[in-house]
């Protein structure tokens, strides 16, 4: 394995992550139960299709006997292979690691099974497998290969020359002048031939590379604008991508030799879309749930956020479990926003927050409550689990009782100051609850679009209502993908009111995660 890791290190030096289901944060995190075991699962996505994903499973409490993982794509007709046994991670007593080949692009599931003295149970982590990054060619590898390539070029020319010069001579006979001349001609001819082959190979490589770049994942195109003529003003988010707009239109797809295989939108946390507005300076934030009649234009009342240019992130999930974030911008002009007291919100779960982040680890919320980031004082390192945990306290310092907010004890949004990272987190991790349920609810008969979606909505509503109240402390399993300045908005609900606390987090550089 040493040789392989050496080869891997030679090749894998610069990865440029583009976008994924979230933005700039391709790993999937899940925290929850696998039967009787509490597990935290991290899936490091390969970034190419097909590629090898690394799965880390951490168990809390009793040590299990066996941890296995298996991957499958969203397709009820394809069988799954026998699961892979995850091996204990070096220098760790509770973490197991496995490598899985992900063959199919699109929505895939990783099923982790933990078994031991307490019994056994499974956890499903939905992942979106798309080509996301282009690997640069390492200069050291390029120099090494070019050197050997040159040697092989010269070697082949020499061999052909020797064959023509001496190859046909009887044993012991020396080559004549004619032999030598013919050999020179053959060597020139071989050089030209090899040069043409190399040129052909280079063109081939270039065409593979440009095709790969064209197929790199791009979020579906969208735009956002404010309709200020209505009272109160509305923000209208529209999907402009022609593949999406013409989804299901087989004549349109055939004429353009395209395959529009989008399945219908499904609700995640009871909403078809979670729309986030984050002002460029991160001084204002809104979390909205627009309504739609055609799955193309989504409308929401504009909350009273201050003017400025906003980055717009829109999370949606389709029936296949494929979760994605659309990205666009929106400018809120002076006076465009409505009056806070008069605003009729589109959805009772809509919320917004204006102002800077807490300078310290604690920030005041409304109603005399406060929110505190807990955990060690050690700096947060990129690629390592950040240990994000927050406490909500009453004015007297006792833990506040929290109500479920859209089926979750808390929601958090992480954004990097340059807009290159955006993640919507829950205590269960980065994954979408709807995506996860598509894998547990699908049946072989789900061949008609929308059939699974309806069952999914029903199941989700009952699951959301069953979420118990939290005790004032919430954690989010997550690792920041790269160093830099981040802001996290943590949202909880208490007595029907949505409370938002903002914190700045500085992430330092470190080795890649889980090593």
């Amino acid at each position: 394995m040493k040789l392989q890791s050496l080869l891997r290190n030679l090749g894998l030096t610069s990865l440029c992550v583009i976008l994924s289901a979230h933005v700039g944060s391709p790993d999937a995190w899940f925290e929850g139960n696998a039967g009787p075991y509490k597990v935290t699962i991290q899936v490091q996505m390969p970034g190419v299709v097909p590629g090898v994903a690394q799965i880390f499973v951490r168990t809390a409490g009793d040590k299990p006997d066996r941890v296995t993982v298996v991957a499958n794509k969203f397709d009820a007709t394809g069988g799954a292979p026998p699961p892979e046994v995850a091996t204990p991670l070096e220098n760790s007593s509770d973490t197991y690691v496995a490598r899985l080949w992900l063959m199919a692009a699109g929505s895939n599931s990783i099923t982790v099974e933990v078994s031991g003295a307490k019994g056994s149970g499974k956890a499903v982590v939905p992942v979106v497998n798309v080509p996301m990054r282009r690997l640069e060619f390492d200069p050291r590898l390029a120099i090494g290969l070019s050197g050997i390539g040159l040697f092989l070029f010269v070697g082949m020319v020499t061999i052909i020359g020797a064959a023509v010069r001496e190859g046909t001579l009887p044993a012991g006979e020396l080559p004549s002048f004619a032999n030598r001349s013919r050999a020179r001609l053959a060597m020139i001819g071989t050089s030209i031939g090899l040069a043409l082959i190399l040129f052909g190979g280079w063109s081939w490589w270039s065409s593979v590379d440009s095709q790969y770049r064209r197929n790199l994942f791009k979020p579906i195109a969208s735009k956002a604008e404010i309709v200020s003529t209505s009272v109160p003003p509305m923000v209208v988010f529209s999907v402009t991508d022609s593949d999406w707009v013409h989804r299901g239109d087989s004549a349109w797809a055939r004429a353009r030799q395209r395959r529009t295989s989008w399945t219908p939108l499904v609700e995640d946390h009871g909403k078809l879309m979670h729309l986030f507005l984050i002002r460029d300076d991160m001084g204002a934030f809104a979390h909205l749930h627009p309504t739609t009649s055609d799955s193309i234009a989504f409308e929401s009342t504009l909350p009273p956020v201050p003017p400025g240019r906003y980055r717009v992130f829109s999370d949606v999930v389709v029936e296949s479990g494929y979760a994605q974030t659309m990205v666009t911008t929106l400018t809120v002009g002076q006076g465009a926003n409505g009056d806070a007291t008069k605003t009729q919100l589109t959805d009772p779960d809509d919320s917004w927050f204006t102002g800077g982040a807490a300078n310290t680890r604690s920030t005041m919320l409304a109603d005399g409550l406060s929110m505190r980031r807990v955990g060690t004082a050690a700096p947060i390192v990129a690629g390592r689990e950040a240990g994000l945990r927050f406490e909500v306290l009453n004015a007297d310092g006792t833990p506040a009782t929290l109500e479920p907010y859209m089926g979750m004890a808390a929601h958090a949004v992480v954004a990097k100051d340059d807009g290159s990272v955006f993640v919507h987190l829950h205590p269960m991790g980065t994954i979408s609850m709807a995506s996860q349920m598509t894998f547990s609810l699908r049946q072989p008969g789900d061949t008609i679009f929308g059939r699974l979606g309806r069952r999914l909505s029903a199941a989700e509503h009952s699951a959301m209502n069953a979420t118990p109240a939290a005790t004032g402390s919430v954690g989010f399993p997550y690792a920041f993908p790269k160093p830099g300045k981040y802001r996290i908005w943590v949202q909880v609900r208490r007595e029907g009111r949505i409370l938002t606390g903002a914190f700045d987090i500085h992430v330092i550089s470190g080795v890649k995660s889980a090593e």
Partner: protein
Amino acid sequence: MATTVSTFGPTEASEARAHSATLAAEWPIYSVVFASTCIIVGLMWDISWHRTIGRDTFWSPPHVLEQVAAIVAGLSCGYVVLQTTFAGSDEARGKSVRFWRFFQAPLGAWVCIWATITMITSAPLDNWWHNAYGLDVKIISPPHMVLAAGMIGIEVGAMLMVLGAQNRATTERDRRRLGFIFAYAGAIVVSMAAVLIEENAAFGNEMHGSAFYKLTATVIPIFLVAFARSSRLKWPATTTALLYMVFVLLNMWVIQLFPAQPRLAPIYNPVTHMVPSPFPLLLVFPAVGIDLLMRRFGSDRDWPLALAIGVAFVGVMLAVHWFWGDFLLSPYARNSFFAADKWDYNNRLGPWRYQFWNLDRDASRNFSPLHLAQGIAVAMIYAAISARIGLWWGKGMARIKR
């Protein structure tokens, strides 16, 4: 019988000693022919591995077999270079060619060393490729072609080493023995060529479309004709084609005995044993034609000969494989012996299994005998060009003595 014992004199004894000394001196030939065999077995095994199990590593058994082949060929030939250059007898040096005016070894040894380095070079390139563009998305990719150049290099190098020995042989016994080994080394090269076009020209479903005949006409005659021209056997192309068929059949029959299961999702075809390669092409029939034509035309009318081979090769291929395709799609071929109807773990099985693919069609998408006839005519031109190159190459090889 007693007389036989009493006349077992010094002459025969010294001849036997000389013969065993020749065999001992030929060890590099056996070594590279062994390496050449490992390469093609490893390749066929690896393809079956990808069709059955799906997932592999750098150290999967078929890969290890290929690495062993490269190492055996490279080390044997490296030793031959050092031995010939620094401690070689005049006779050994006389049978070698010089590299950079100093190093000496037989031509085939240089080709094998070049090929070994090429195979090794492809490993980091292929690894990078997998990380950059995905794992084995296609068989035909630039790093795989570098690897294939190395593999073919070892097979051609092995062939050249046998060839030099065959062309130097002075006794009829040696000539026949080395002629057979040469035919075997050639059969491995033909197997390699056939395996490389297996995706597009091997399944019965392909045998009613001109694409099958165009591809085989381009790839196969060049080798059969070149080997026929440089061999000392009476039926050289036929022997090579027969050895190719036996070799692929043995692989095909043996590999499907081993239980295996897919390790990647989604599995649409839950296979339980290694998926064998398709039945070999029935090359022995056109090969008989090649041998007969080459005997009839002699060696001084190569252009008409190439044209005749082109027409005969495609004509015989069509006559044989048209009906063979029908048979392979029939229920009688769906067994271990003919190994038809064996598909990959990730093939969604459907009616396409028993249908002909890539049929020649007209503008309204109906099967068109006219389009087929045009395609066959084009295939004959391809075969003639391929045969002409083969004649030229074979003529050169026939003169190789070192």
